[in-house]
């Protein structure tokens, strides 16, 4: 199977199970709302009856921000939130730096909660994707989610350890290695170039680790494996056996995700100084989150298709 066919099959799978997207979106929205309520109350308390609210409604007041002493959940408040691309790039930066604690304890904690929740939801997604004969139903989605949860939780936990070690040791080592080629006296263009190369390698490695865990999940569901760690090993073996196609597919979908993010980011960059413009922005933002969830499912669907098509003949051969 070619990368193109896998992608096409992935689109097909996502479209056939499109009802999963609002379900996952609802969980995402609800969890965010849990954080947003104290955020709103705190912010309302600070600016609700001050004249500063007029400036903040029409734009941003730097003098207020200068004196603003953010505590707890408000620590992640910043002027860039109003921009289209900047909040998205802020998150992308975290993937490169691994500094998921940058926006404070509460964001890190809820990020971990979301990790557990998404491990649960991923079981439902992959369970339904592999069961091609039957269509989507909420009960079967949650049944699959529950069935695979212990495996997916173990994989998530292992991924956390791997990423912790990666960001703690490998990423700084890589950056330091590239940094050694330059000093403060070197031309800035050269320093920026090497800096960019170093972070590109970091990104590639993050993708690679992700891909391993994606295939580990697929193997658990497709092969009905009992050992999560064994599935990681099988995932690595599969990737190296079909490196070009596996990596090509992953990078292609990552490019689709990046392009989508860029397009939405640019669209959302318009000024939000009037009520109806804010309303339009909110609708577009939520639409983008839906699309983003869809792309995450596309990763699973396409990789599942690739794995099934490449591994099934291998299994047949082994049996023969």
């Amino acid at each position, binding site marked *: 199977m070619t990368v193109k066919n896998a992608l096409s099959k992935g689109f097909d799978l996502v479209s056939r199970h499109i009802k999963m997207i609002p379900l996952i979106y609802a969980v995402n929205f609800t969890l965010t709302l849990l954080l947003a309520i104290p955020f709103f109350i705190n912010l309302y308390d600070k600016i609700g009856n001050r004249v500063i609210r007029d400036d903040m409604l029409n734009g941003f007041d730097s003098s207020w921000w200068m004196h603003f002493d953010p505590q707890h959940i408000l620590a992640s408040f910043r002027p860039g*939130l109003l921009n289209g691309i*900047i909040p998205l790039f802020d998150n992308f930066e975290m993937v490169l730096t691994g500094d998921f604690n940058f926006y404070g304890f509460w964001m890190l904690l809820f990020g971990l909660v979301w990790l557990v929740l998404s491990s649960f939801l991923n079981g439902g997604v992959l369970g339904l994707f592999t069961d091609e004969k039957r269509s989507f139903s909420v009960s079967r989605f949650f049944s699959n989610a529950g069935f695979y949860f212990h495996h997916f939780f173990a994989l998530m936990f292992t991924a956390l350890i791997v990423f912790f070690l990666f960001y703690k040791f490998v990423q700084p080592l890589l950056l330091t290695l590239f940094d050694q080629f330059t000093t403060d006296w070197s031309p800035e263009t050269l320093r920026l170039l090497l800096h960019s190369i170093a972070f590109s390698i970091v990104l590639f490695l993050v993708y690679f680790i992700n891909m391993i865990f994606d295939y580990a999940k697929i193997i658990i569901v497709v092969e009905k494996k009992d050992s999560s760690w064994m599935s990681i090993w099988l995932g690595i073996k599969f990737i190296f056996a079909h490196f070009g196609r596996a990596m090509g597919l992953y990078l292609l979908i990552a490019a689709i995700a990046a392009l989508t993010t860029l397009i939405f980011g640019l669209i959302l960059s318009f000024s939000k100084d009037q009520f109806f413009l*804010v309303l339009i922005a909110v609708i577009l933002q939520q639409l983008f989150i839906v699309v983003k969830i869809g792309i995450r499912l596309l990763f699973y669907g396409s990789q599942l298709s690739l794995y099934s098509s490449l591994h099934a003949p291998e299994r047949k051969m082994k049996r023969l």
Partner: protein
Amino acid sequence: MFKNALLLVTVILIFSNSVYAAPPFCSSNNEIFLKATLEPQDGRIVGYERVLYKNDDALPQNRIYLRLFLNQFRNSETLLSTGLVTAKQLGSLFSGPADWGRIEVKKVVVQGTDMTNALQMASDQNKNLTPGAWAFLDLVSPLPPDQDITIEIDFVTQLPAGLFGNDFEHQLFVAAFWYPQLCSAADFQNQKQSPLSTWQNYAGYDVEFVVPKDYTLAASAIQTDSAIVDDQLHYRFKDPCLREMAVVTSPNLRAEEREFQYEDMPPVTIRLIYADALQKDNSAILKALENLLKYYGLWYAPYPKSTFSVVHLPHSTALAPAAFPGLGIIGSASQERFGQESLIPRVILHGGLNYWQQLITLHFANTGWIEEGLNLYSQTRLLIAAYGYLPYTKTYLDFQNVAINWKQHSVPVDPRDRLMAELDHIDELSDEGKITFYEENKRRDIIKSALLFWTLENIVGDQPFSIALRDFVRNSLYNRCALEEFISLLTNQHDLDPRLASLFDEILIQGGTSDFKVSHIFSRDLQEQGFWKNGKEWEYRNETTDQVYNRITLEHMGSVHLPVDVVVTMENGETMEWIWDGYHKVKIFEFEHATAVRKVEIDPNHKILIDLDRVNNSLYRKKNIWSALKWTSMWMFWVQHYFEVVASIS
């Protein structure tokens, strides 16, 4: 922007008829000849100094003092080492004894007599001075007032690695306070009160500085000549009025010059010395320096010398630019609460230090207001006039000083807000649990005094304040100037509230603060209650009238008393303006009106920049959710995406 343009036009109109007379000649007492050779392999300077020293005191002098400033960095226990920078910073500067700096006096000859053995180290009972940082000589016969003597000194200076930006690995040598400086007993006594101060009197300098032939050199003095002799480059400097012979030299530096000429101001050659890697910034830096000379020339005084030297060094260098009188060093950008400090403000800040230190000087403690405070005030003023508000710049993927700086133009930042933000942290402790001298000095003398200048300008008005400041600067050229002179100039020329004259004292010396707050608004419909005679009968009435009872409570939580404007906006759009004398801690206004109060604002035009919290200066009677809701929805989107990013690596 319109206001800024108006300010600019006004100021130009005020000064357009000024005649830029030649600057008065420096009335320096001492004439200094220096011959020094840099030995790059050891990071040291071997020098000879000859001083024609004049007693400018009213009494005969029995003793003269030598300030050996770099001995403040002889080891990590010295007063300056522990006071100027925190222990954490110090650790990154010095890796061991080999990195410390010192001045060794080899020989002293007074009026032809060798007095090396008579040289003694000064100390004081309060241990305010680092041993070795001051030496003294008892003269054979007292030096009468207005008489002079010739003193010759052979010395060797070891430059401290790291400190001042010295980077021996890249052959960058930064020499400041590198030669023995002669002082009177009065200077010594003053220095004891403020041991970390880097003051220096003006003097006439004649300097020959020798470096390897491939080196580029920048200095605070006016260069007159250069020639290669015996494979070495001999620079010659002659400056009739200089505070300090500061030098930056390296084979890795280049020079670019631009001629500055504006109206009938004296022409100035702007000399930018830069590291190759930073060449791309040259155009912006030179433009900023042109702006500086133009605006400061219009506002205060034309730059009096023919050369204006500025050095642009890589990020890891230039720790203490303020320590280089007359030589602007643009060094590291700091990451601030409100994003990355961009290049232009840094150029104007450090170029401004160069400007001020070439023009006026000061003496000892409690005077950071004039050089640093005035510099910071004029920097923000110039930024607003020439550049407007600069965009908030966020730094991404920062690693080892390589980063992507993203300018967010939708968030323009008033440079004064950066200063006001510092006020919030005025009493915060450092990581080590104490406020270092440097931090305390910076916050108290520099930030507060800059904001005080702004506050006074806002209260007095642009034009009168600018004229007073211009007269003060022009009267003080090449002289020690005092705060009292400026206040006196301001109060004599203008009908100034006498309380404003004491502001500097209350805020800078006594550490006073100011914080106004609208704490409560209360409005209710007026009731008409009582018994009314209706014919022969009395009847009880409890009726609502068409008047509203309003009560406003204002607070002043600081210790500095300032008159302040109060604007009350009613629900029908009508506004009332009062002036509150700010004397009492709490002030309650009660009045009846056709409608209820909608909002109250203290200091609505943001005149008082020393207010610790400007946000609580206003209050609406009723809360409104829309602003918080808008920002919460934007924040929610970011969090939702954050979750999706996290999920993608699960």
